[in-house]
């Protein structure tokens, strides 16, 4: 059978509901046992308890089996088997209920209305056709009991002391009850399946709408990628052509010429930084599955420290690295993890004044690898914290300090962390500093 994502959603829901039904059945086992016990002990109605307990035991046994087999079917995604199982469960439930009713008074026992609950459950879980087939089965076994007992084809287990006259022999009563019961059952089947069909339809259209949105977003990202890539080529060419002239290779320049060309070159460089960041985040968005490998965290931190250390020294800032000795390997895309850490560290460096401190702390807290970047920088205003990792967003105090910035560094880091099923946590106080924690699961 061809399966589409939206069918998968519904099949997955069915699996959840079957598990739910199994839990409900344990309650039913307790309920039946409790009812039989109460009726015989406290109401002194001498029903024959052993057949009833027997049926309940059967109920418990098959429920145990279903509970045992269900995780297996779920893990292997055997959706059609789960569907068969759902039908089989309701079929067995109806049969059990029929036996319970038969052994405790037949038509005299008002618990026969519980058949309706099973039909409602079928209507929620199964298709319209399956529900009506099960409803018809319920009608047949009900009629078999009441008419069988009426005509003496089946033994009647009375409820002594409840009714003065045996109701099962009263033809008019039996026919009347059967009519009400059969119509109630089919009405329940009709109503439940109608509602549930409509809900399924809505769920399908929502799933479809969601898929469409995803596709649109992908098209947009691909477009951005293409345009940005072209922009970058042109920018790189502009930069490459200006550079030798500005450096005097095409003849000595006077001060004004050098000044203006330097400005042009600087701006093209800034634009390239921006375009590169845009390319990076768009590529990350389009990456569905990245190949994850194991690599040494210690080596990565060493490399990062080798590139950030000199920058910090140059700017008269202190850069400290603290690595938990327990840290060993992690699984992920090495270049991306490196990129995430470098982005955040460069931000810290940019927004921490001279003589400030930037600390990179790596901790092992099984099953998490926590990488903290702590700085004594300008901080992020509290009301801007929720927006700070949004693409292109820059904090007001950061903008006041440096007019230029892509506003993409942290969003790229966030995307990378999400790709590794990790979390990013940002704490900050204006004027005191910022602490960004990247937590990546070691159990990827």
């Amino acid at each position, binding site marked *: 059978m061809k399966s589409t994502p939206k069918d998968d959603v519904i099949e997955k829901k069915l699996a959840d509901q079957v598990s739910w039904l199994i839990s409900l059945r344990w309650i039913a086992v307790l309920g039946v046992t409790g009812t039989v016990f109460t009726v015989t002990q406290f109401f002194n109605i001498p029903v024959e308890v052993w057949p009833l307990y027997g049926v309940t035991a059967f109920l418990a046994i098959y429920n145990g089996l279903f509970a045992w087999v269900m995780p297996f079917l779920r893990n292997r995604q055997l959706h059609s088997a789960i569907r068969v199982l759902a039908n089989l469960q309701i079929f067995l439930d109806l049969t059990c209920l029929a036996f319970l009713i038969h052994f405790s008074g037949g038509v005299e026992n008002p618990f026969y209305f519980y058949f309706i609950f099973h039909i409602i459950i079928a209507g929620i879980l199964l298709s319209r056709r399956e529900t009506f087939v099960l409803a018809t089965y319920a009608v047949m076994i009900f009629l078999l009991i009441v008419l069988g007992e009426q005509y003496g084809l089946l033994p009647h287990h009375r409820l002594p002391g409840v009714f003065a006259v045996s109701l099962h022999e009263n033809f008019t009563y039996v026919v009347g009850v059967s009519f009400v019961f059969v119509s109630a059952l089919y009405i329940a089947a009709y109503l439940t399946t109608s509602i549930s069909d409509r809900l399924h339809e809505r769920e399908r259209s929502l799933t479809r709408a969601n898929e469409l949105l995803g596709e649109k977003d992908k098209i947009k990202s691909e477009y951005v990628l293409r345009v940005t890539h072209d922009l970058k*080529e042109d*920018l*790189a*060419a502009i*930069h*490459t*052509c200006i*550079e*030798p002239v500005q*450096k005097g*290779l*095409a003849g000595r320049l006077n001060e004004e010429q050098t000044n203006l060309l330097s400005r042009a070159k600087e701006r*093209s*460089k800034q634009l*390239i930084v921006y375009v*590169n960041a845009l*390319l*990076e985040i768009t*590529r990350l968005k389009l*990456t569905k599955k*990245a190949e994850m490998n194991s690599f040494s965290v210690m080596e990565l931190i060493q490399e990062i420290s080798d590139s950030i250390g000199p920058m910090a020294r140059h700017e008269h800032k202190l850069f400290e690295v603290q690595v938990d000795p327990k840290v060993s390997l992690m699984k992920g*895309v*090495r*270049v*991306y993890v*490196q990129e995430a850490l470098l982005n955040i560290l460069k931000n810290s460096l940019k927004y921490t004044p001279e003589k400030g401190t930037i600390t990179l702390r790596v901790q092992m807290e099984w099953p998490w690898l926590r990488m903290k970047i702590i700085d004594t920088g300008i901080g992020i205003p509290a009301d801007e914290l929720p927006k700070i990792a949004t693409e292109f967003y820059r904090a007001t105090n950061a903008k006041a300090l440096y007019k230029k910035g892509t506003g993409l560094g942290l969003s790229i880091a966030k995307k990378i962390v999400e790709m590794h099923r990790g979390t990013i946590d940002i704490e900050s106080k204006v004027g005191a500093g910022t602490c960004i924690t990247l937590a990546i699961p070691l159990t990827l």
Partner: protein
Amino acid sequence: MKKILIIDDDEDVVEAMRFVLDKRGYKVITAGDGNKGLTHARAEKPDAVILDVMMPGLDGFEVARELKGDPQTKGIPILMLTAIKDKTGFDFQKDVNDPDWLPVEDYCNKPLDCEVLVEKIDRLLLK
């Protein structure tokens, strides 16, 4: 006079590189795509090749493998122009010496810094 072959489809970048290398005293020949590049490399026996990655037809990776696989041209050092990480998420630098990955001697990110370009080419030709 040492001869350098530039294989790149971006005429403006080629022009700027030609100018810089020319000033440095190198003889520069150019090719606008991978196939022409291979032909020139075999016919002209340049002392070094500057190779772009993204080109129509044969791309830089294919050209590099072709050059290094040919006994006539395998001794020519290649400087590849790429921000390889952008394309593959793969850190190219670590694998420069890995013959299975990419058989080139050095690489240089675009946009080029003319001093870096000259320095890298000088170094390749010294080897």
